């Protein structure tokens, strides 16, 4: 059973919001005692998803949660945008696939960086991505 200990929301509307958001995530990661490598992985994943949200979804809402499950604790991040949605999620999760001009590593790379990854998208309504990184993951 996952228990949410702490919840924090942040609105992302412009590129200048990326760094403050990353710092906020880092703060929580440090607070629960996450190792430096895992911190960096989580922050990179967060940065990746936030940029996606800005680029394709026109910004949106983020949620930072501190989670415990048994003896383990971790950080769960949720990214909700009301953009155009992703037509084919299977394609978007492939390495090197991009509808923009990027490397196409954002989504699949993020999935490799975290412990749990969930993406839901409805065309025309928006996309929600949830990731979870355990302290010792």
């Amino acid at each position, binding site marked *: 059973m996952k228990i949410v200990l702490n919840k924090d929301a942040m609105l992302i509307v412009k*590129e200048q919001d*990326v*760094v403050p958001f*990353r710092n906020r995530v880092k703060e929580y990661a440090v607070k629960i005692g996450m190792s*430096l*490598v895992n*911190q*960096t*992985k989580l*922050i*990179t994943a967060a*940065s*990746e998803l936030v*940029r996606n949200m800005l680029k394709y979804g026109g910004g949106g809402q983020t949620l930072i949660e501190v989670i415990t499950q048994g003896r383990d604790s971790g950080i769960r991040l949720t990214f909700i945008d009301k953009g155009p949605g992703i037509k084919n999620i299977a394609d978007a999760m492939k*390495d090197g696939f991009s509808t923009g001009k*990027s*490397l196409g*590593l*954002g989504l*699949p*790379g*993020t999935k*490799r*960086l975290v412990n749990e990854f969930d993406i839901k998208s409805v065309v025309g309504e928006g996309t929600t991505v949830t990731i979870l990184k355990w302290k010792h993951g």
Partner: protein
Amino acid sequence: MKADLSKLLQRKKKQILESWIQHQLVDETLREDLMSNEELREQSEELVNALLKSLSDKVFADADAPELEPVYEILAGISISRARQGFSPKETGLYVFSLKNALQEVLDEEAKDDPQFLYDSIKRINKLMDNLGVLTFETYIKGREEVILRQTDEITEISTPVIRVWDGILALPIIGTLDSARTQVVMENLLQEIVNTGSTIAILDISGVPAVDSLVAQHLIKTVSATRLMGAECIISGIRPEIAQTVVHLGIDLSNIVTKASLASALKYAFGLMKLDVKRIQKDIKS
């Protein structure tokens, strides 16, 4: 007989101005260090003049009336200049709202015998002055934002120095996040400096970059490719262990770029490329 509010106020201009300035002078938020009393009087007079001139029944009813535009302009100018001079938002806001007090005082006196007229007039003045107050605030914040934007530009400018560490070797320490705008500045500075100095090796040091995500990596790859097109070799240094792991997990391929853990090892590698050798001098000890 119903008196005309605009006419009444226009007639009482001098009194309003005096009362307003008096209000400001006794107020504790008066900042004589930032603005002299003469300047304050001049500014206030200009605003009162413009405001009273534009007053009419139409203006009271419609806050967007074109007659009010000159007033808005003067007010915007005042609050922007106050934002730059370092007035606090409270001081700037009170400046405008104290005019409301002055207007009301004059009205109190003039319409003592006609409570209905007094009530109506005060209501209308309140509405108009609230509008002006909100506008002051908006422009004040805009003025502050401009200051912030200018500082952002300055930071971008100073944070991308290109250093000549050796004849033919350039180093470029990057501190902070690499976004598109930043990359553009970095790349321009670097390429220009390669031309200016005729260097053949450039070292990009990313020790100060907190996280390398795929966008940052893409920008790095672009910079390296551009440098190569100029005929120079580009080395990326300052890759920390946690960054290395993250980059691998993300699946970013940096294998055809020369990367080093520290600036020192990058410099050593550069010396190797230039066939230079750094040696400790053996002192001759003559016994």
